[in-house]
């Protein structure tokens, strides 16, 4: 894959402490332009916390976050959005009493390009077409099913025309058919040139999609590399995959 491009996001020695709990412990990673970067780890490993620190939901206790060469540590989420960062939520958060189209329009209006309303609506229509929600655009967001809500989140994030997209478990709760669809969408997004940082539990999907994978366990990074390297990493096998054979199966499933 074309991973020789420049670095777009750097996390340097980031720690995050909640009271006595160390949720992130000196994490370092860098994401390159155009790649799909997967983050895996058991429940409670600090993956979502890492996302929250990256997009400014809370500032890191220590360490720096750099985005496109600029130090963005401690910036607010809306500042990050303007700089071209978009994300979806692990638990979907549709704007329930707004229509699907309005939801996506919000993304376009307040995202990187800060489009005026009319242009934003056009973008919303395009994006809805793209993720396959076009027929439902006049529905209230609360009336969608889970898979559709996931697509809506994705559409809303895309409408912001991000440079880097954070996907937090977009596949969770989908049936195999819907997973396959969604994987297609993610690939298409990457092919547009948008860098993707994704948290995923569905192992074969991560291994299959990602150019590189990063493993967190109890807030600490234990491995980083290509899917192959990571799944053979002894620490990963010990901490996460448990059994080397399981790891092998994942890779095969992904192939």
């Amino acid at each position, binding site marked *: 894959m074309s991973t020789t491009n420049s670095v777009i996001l750097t996390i340097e020695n980031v720690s995050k402490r909640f009271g006595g709990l160390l949720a992130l412990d000196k994490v370092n990673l860098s994401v390159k332009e155009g790649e799909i970067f997967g983050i895996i780890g058991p429940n409670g490993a600090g993956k979502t916390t890492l996302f929250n620190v990256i997009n400014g939901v809370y500032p890191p206790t220590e360490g720096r976050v750099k985005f496109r060469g600029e130090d963005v540590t401690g910036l*607010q989420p*809306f500042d990050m*959005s*303007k700089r071209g960062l978009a994300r979806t939520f692990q638990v979907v*958060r549709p*704007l329930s*009493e707004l229509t699907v189209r309005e939801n996506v329009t919000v993304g376009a*209006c*307040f995202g990187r390009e*800060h489009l005026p309303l009319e242009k934003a609506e056009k973008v919303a229509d395009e994006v809805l077409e793209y993720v396959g929600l076009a027929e439902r655009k006049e529905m209230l967001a609360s009336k969608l099913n889970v898979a559709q809500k996931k697509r809506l989140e994705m559409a809303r994030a895309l409408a912001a025309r991000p440079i880097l997209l954070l996907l937090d478990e977009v596949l969770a709760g989908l049936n195999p058919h819907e997973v396959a669809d969604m994987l297609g969408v993610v690939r298409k997004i990457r092919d547009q040139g948008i860098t993707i940082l994704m948290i995923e539990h569905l192992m074969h999907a991560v291994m299959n999609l990602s150019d590189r994978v990063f493993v967190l366990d109890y807030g600490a990074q234990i491995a980083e590399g290509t899917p192959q390297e990571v799944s053979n990493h002894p620490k990963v096998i010990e901490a996460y995959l448990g059994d080397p054979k399981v790891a092998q199966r994942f890779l095969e499933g992904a192939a």
Partner: protein
Amino acid sequence: MKTLSSPFIWIILVVVGGASLLPILTNSVSLREDMFLMLMLVILASSINIIMGYTGYVSFGHIVFFGLGGYLAFFLMKEFQVQFMLAALVGGAGASLIAFFIGIPVLRLRGAYFALATIGINEAFRSFFTNFDLFGGAVGMFFNFSVYDAYGGAKNAGQLAYYAMVVLALVTIGTSFVIKKSKFGLGLMAIREDQDASMVLGIDPARLKVLTYTISAFFPAVAGALFFFKNGLIEPGPAFELHRSIEALVMVMLGGYGTVTGPIVGAVVYERLRGFLITDPTLSNAHLVIAGVLLLLIVLFVTAGVIGWVRQRVPALRRYLE
């Protein structure tokens, strides 16, 4: 602007404006008085709807701006003989400014805490004005009748105040519509639905909310100025009457939260109902009870309000009935 090409808003404005002309055409002063009060309530309900219906912040003490605008304008008219419309606008601007500074800290509060804080602010201002001798303290301020001579006598002044109130009502409704249909309004509704998610989508909630609060303070303030100008006197009690604020919330709910037409319909229905109950000989004793029972029935069974209910029932109308 594309928003203003929507036929919907023009229909509303024509209906409201047309109704406002009735007292002039029929030359009925008492109808004019009724309409004056009703338009004032429409303004109050619509501006509360901007902060509450669009942004999701239940401002219980919104009446504070009515009082502040009334007091500022009254002071200017009485002490400096400022023309009433100018004084009203200055009163509105002053109240907005105060809203801006109050809004910055207070809008950080959410839900019940915000609602309680607005009550506290209103009560603090009311008791402050009771003690503030520059503005007449407990006694309040009153005009000598000669003030009205500048407007062709008291009778004519009432007429002028009415015209001003009509214009203000139309502007308020127009603003409410423009906000709702704009990018700004979309941002507000995103905040209402999920403030944290809206931040991630690129919205700076603090900025938008303070701005909204500032705007929504302007209209009741000007309405207060007009009301007390016509009244000829202002006192802390009637100026900062918490009950009126809560009644305005009731109107918004009655008509439909978050819609442009809802507060208008709510204000008209509520005011007509109360007016009817009070003047009806057999019901007047029980008017509070009856109004209460009706309100309860609506709250329990028609949660979305009249307009909201119609929108739910007839989805085809959603696009047209804002």
